[in-house]
């Protein structure tokens, strides 16, 4: 049962990933600019021979459908193509940049969940009272803040003005980076036993992960609150109250458990917004992750890396939502897959 469910869900991934490549390719086909011109200096771009050589080197002289077929052929053998911008295989780039994003996304997600869920519960329990108003206000600020601006404010206050936290980047420039194992500096430095690097990496994580997590925090608070409020109007909650259960038991045993499913579902869907946030956060904090990589390459209409980043984020997104579906079984014994 479980196996066939997993298989079915994993099979659905294939057409979606295929469509992503197609959509990305169509977007780049509309390009009025010539990628070759992007790569060359102005002087070189005037030399026809150089231009022709560059176009041949990157396969730009072929017809669009040929280019797409070629790309798909490579993709099926695990090759994501090459980036004009970095002049390296996209796979190598992703291997280098993805761990940095993961290292940033984990504390951001934890912050969003650990603050957002309790705040949402408090708001629902104290619906229409001042605790509710405060938490609604905080969550609304969370989803309304321009991330780039919050990043700038955080840097100018905590780094430039107070000087209590480090500026952009992942590590203090004086410190030798630990040998690369996972690509996540906190873990790598611990493995190397380099406490100085570990503490520097940790300090560098504080501001960007809070900035990145704030939007998710606001979103999760709002989702949790509305799911709780909706559950509270149900008959079984009224029954529980009328049989004299104390409010704490009603909230924890009856409301929370039943509100868990819509909350978890929405959290899974909200995971996608983390990536959009990562683009801005990584740009502001000079964080060498896939968000900044996508931003840099998108600005130059560099096809392969954009698709590469999108494929990897879509994959993560689909897997997260698969985990969400699996968690239903734990949350609600009535559900069978």
């Amino acid at each position: 049962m479980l196996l066939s469910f997993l298989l079915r869900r994993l099979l659905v991934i294939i057409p979606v990933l295929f469509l992503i490549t197609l959509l990305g390719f169509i977007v780049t086909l509309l390009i009025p600019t010539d990628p070759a011109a992007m790569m060359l200096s102005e002087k070189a771009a005037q030399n026809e021979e150089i231009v022709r050589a560059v176009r041949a080197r990157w396969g730009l002289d072929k017809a669009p459908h040929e280019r797409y077929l070629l790309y798909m052929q490579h993709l099926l053998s695990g090759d994501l193509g090459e980036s004009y911008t970095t002049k390296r295989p996209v796979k190598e780039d992703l291997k280098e940049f993805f761990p940095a994003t993961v290292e940033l996304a984990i504390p951001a997600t934890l912050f969003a969940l650990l603050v957002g869920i309790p705040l949402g519960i408090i708001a629902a329990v104290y619906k229409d009272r001042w605790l509710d108003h405060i938490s609604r206000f905080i969550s609304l600020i969370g989803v309304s803040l321009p991330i780039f601006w919050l990043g700038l404010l955080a840097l100018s206050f905590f780094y430039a003005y107070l000087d209590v936290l480090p500026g952009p980047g992942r590590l203090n420039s004086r410190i030798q980076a630990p040998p690369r194992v996972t690509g996540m500096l906190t873990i790598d430095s611990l493995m190397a036993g380099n406490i100085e690097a570990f503490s520097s990496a940790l300090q560098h994580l504080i501001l960007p992960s809070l900035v990145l997590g704030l939007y998710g925090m606001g979103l999760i608070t709002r989702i949790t609150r509305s799911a709780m409020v909706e559950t509270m109007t149900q008959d079984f909650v009224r029954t529980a109250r009328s049989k004299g259960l104390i409010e704490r038991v009603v909230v924890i045993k009856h409301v929370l458990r039943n509100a868990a499913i819509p909350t978890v579902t929405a959290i899974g869907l909200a995971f996608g917004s983390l990536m959009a946030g990562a683009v801005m956060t990584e740009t502001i904090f000079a964080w060498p992750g896939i968000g900044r990589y996508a931003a840099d390459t998108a600005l130059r209409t560099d096809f392969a890396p954009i698709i590469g980043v999108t494929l990897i984020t879509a994959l993560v997104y689909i897997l997260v939502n698969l985990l969400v579906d699996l968690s239903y079984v734990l949350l609600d014994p009535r559900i069978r897959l």
Partner: protein
Amino acid sequence: MLRRFIRNRSAMIGAFLVGIWLLGAAAAPVLAPYEPLKQDLRNRIKAPLEVEGHYLGTDTLGRDIASRLLYGAQISIPIAIVVVAMTALLGISLGAVSGFIGGWVDEIIMRISDATLAFPSLILAMAITATLGPGLFNSAIAITLVLWPEYARFMRGQVLRVRGYEYVQAAESLGMGRLQTLLRHIVPNAIPLMWVKASLDVGQAILLAASLSFIGLGAVPPNPEWGAMAAAGREKFAEWWIGTFPGLAILSVVMGFNFLGDGLRDVLDPRNRR
């Protein structure tokens, strides 16, 4: 309905914030103490009130920030509203077609919407804008192309749900054409909830447009677009006012639209009635 709206605190806070900015935008020529593009190189980078008349200070070219914010409202807000209107129109049409015709048309539209949703919105918008070339108009198109799937899915769901209702089946059995049923019975039913989503999305569209401008893909200088103005404050930690006030403007107007959306939801959603 109107009374419930007026009694709703979120709705009123939202209407107030949005109203202030709309007024400010409309009255910018009267309210703004300076021309938004007028440079004054003798008064460059002045802190708020350091020079009389510059309430929020001046930027690196000596332009008055308060005036630029007011004129900027004339750009950011109308563009976001137009973008959401275009998005809703596109999404609703595709969703209605998808739900109504079904079959392979439905399959194609829904799979395209899946793929679009799979793209991180900002990255797709950036790629499209970079492709079309930087500019406000192009970034508006990009945002439309990124945001439509949610409307399409919502509308499709509504069509499938409402089609089962007796009054729609009655209308169909009375010989009402498909298009007529759609326009007369299904679309009007879906509109109230659309207002909620549209209001929340205007906030999102403002944020997206500002983000695009911030990375240099949206408004072209010297336009007083808020995202571009905030970008001018980058790396200028000591001259905090250059970036802070445009950001506050964005925050306040986006909060306004979000409050408005929340309030509308309370008012329009029958489940929330007490």
